[in-house]
């Protein structure tokens, strides 16, 4: 597939990522094993009649999508493709509680409507009157990746010149508790800044949303291209090594061309091995970790994608990223042309996303 260009982006995360051009923003951290997003002022994006019914995930996702379009001058993309691992959990939980409380009678329509995974797709389409291709991917740790792949394919096939794509996921206290029982999160409380130094299993929870307008037309300003994506389901070490070699070969680059590897390391001592394998395979690349900034969730690669795009556009690694967790191995003045994102979502869903500064 041909690469696609990122025309605009918008990200709401546990960091001050929304409408913040300054990458040296202070680092937010948590001691509660869960990260929640910093929510923006929604009044500029959502009308008062709509907002009173919307839960947090809907408000965040819808706002990021609309903001992304507005930054590009409000074009009409030929596709809206959104990924979510769990959809709007707040509405889903409220609906399930009502079912139990009222014995499956007299159920609130709003919670039901908003609990459906494609709610943000529909709201964006209605708001912007975009009646073109509209798809939601609910594929756990591949949800964001599959949205990107579909967007690339739609553009590559010539069915669209421009596609709005992105993902969202929210964390609720109940969802956190359920996954705590399953052993997803650390048993002990940990400062997120110390996450990667942990020697225990489990990680910290998170949430976030980011949206991108992708196009086959290169923008006139500094352009970042989404070059390639590969997904691996429960891969062996050989599968990971082979896929890495294949993505490099197919894009006619070598190991040394990867300036930064953005690693989804989550501080889970038992799930560190695949990352070590990638680190060893790319010894000349600058490793950076990101989950101490956003936590773990199904679509956490959306935060890595946003961060990588920002790094390529600004040609610098944000000061807040440089820490004992992310020590620089290259001079900060080195140009950054290529970033490979590698993520391992609880060993099931693994992905590689290649981003490059367009020539």
């Amino acid at each position, binding site marked *: 597939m041909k690469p696609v260009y990122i025309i605009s982006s918008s990200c709401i995360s546990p960091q001050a990522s929304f409408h913040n051009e300054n990458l040296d923003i202070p680092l937010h951290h948590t001691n509660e094993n869960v990260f929640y997003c910093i929510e923006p002022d929604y009044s500029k994006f959502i009308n008062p009649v709509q907002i*009173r*019914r919307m839960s947090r995930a809907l408000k965040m996702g819808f706002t990021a999508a609309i903001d992304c379009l507005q930054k590009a001058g409000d074009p009409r993309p030929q596709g809206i493709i959104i990924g979510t691992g769990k959809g709007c959990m707040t509405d889903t939980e409220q609906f399930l509680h009502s079912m139990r409380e009222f014995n499956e009678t007299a159920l609130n*329509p709003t919670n039901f409507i908003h609990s459906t995974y494609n709610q943000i797709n529909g709201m964006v389409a209605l708001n912007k009157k975009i009646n073109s291709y509209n798809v939601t991917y609910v594929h756990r740790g591949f949800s964001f990746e599959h949205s990107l792949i579909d967007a690339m394919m739609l553009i590559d096939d010539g069915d669209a010149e421009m596609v709005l794509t992105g993902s969202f996921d929210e964390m609720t206290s109940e969802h956190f508790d359920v996954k705590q029982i399953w052993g997803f999160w650390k048993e002990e409380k940990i400062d997120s800044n110390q996450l990667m130094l942990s020697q225990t299993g489990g990680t910290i929870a998170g949430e976030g949303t980011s949206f991108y307008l992708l196009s086959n037309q290169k923008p006139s300003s500094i352009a970042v291209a989404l070059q390639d994506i590969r997904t691996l389901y429960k891969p062996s070490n050989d599968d990971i090594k082979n896929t890495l070699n294949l993505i490099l070969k197919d894009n006619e680059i070598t190991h040394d061309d990867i300036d930064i590897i953005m690693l989804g390391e989550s501080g889970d001592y038992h799930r560190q091995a695949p990352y070590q394998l990638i680190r060893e395979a790319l010894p000349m690349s600058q490793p950076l970790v990101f989950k101490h900034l956003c936590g773990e969730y199904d679509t956490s690669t959306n935060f890595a994608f946003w961060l990588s795009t920002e790094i390529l556009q600004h040609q610098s690694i944000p000061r807040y990223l440089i820490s004992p967790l992310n020590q620089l191995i290259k001079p900060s003045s080195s140009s950054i042309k290529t970033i490979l994102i590698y993520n391992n979502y609880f060993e099931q869903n693994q992905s590689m996303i290649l981003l490059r500064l367009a020539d």
Partner: protein
Amino acid sequence: MQDQQELILTLKTQIIESLNLQGMTPDEIDNNAPLFGEGLGLDSIDSLELMVLLERNYGIKIEDAREGRKAMESVTAMAQYISEHRTK
């Protein structure tokens, strides 16, 4: 038996809560103003929420859409309908 004025105040509080009319107080809802379109400016999803409110709180199940429209013309109309049809 709850008198009509008390019922109207209770109903207004329930409407604010169930429709999440943030920042609004019962005093700000005109008893006789239309709930939909003008007046409170509610829409079709709100009408479904109000039907749920009637069923949960007063045991009233509205099956006929025309009857529902009439019953939900205003707060006064709703209170009157509740008084006549409530089962709890």
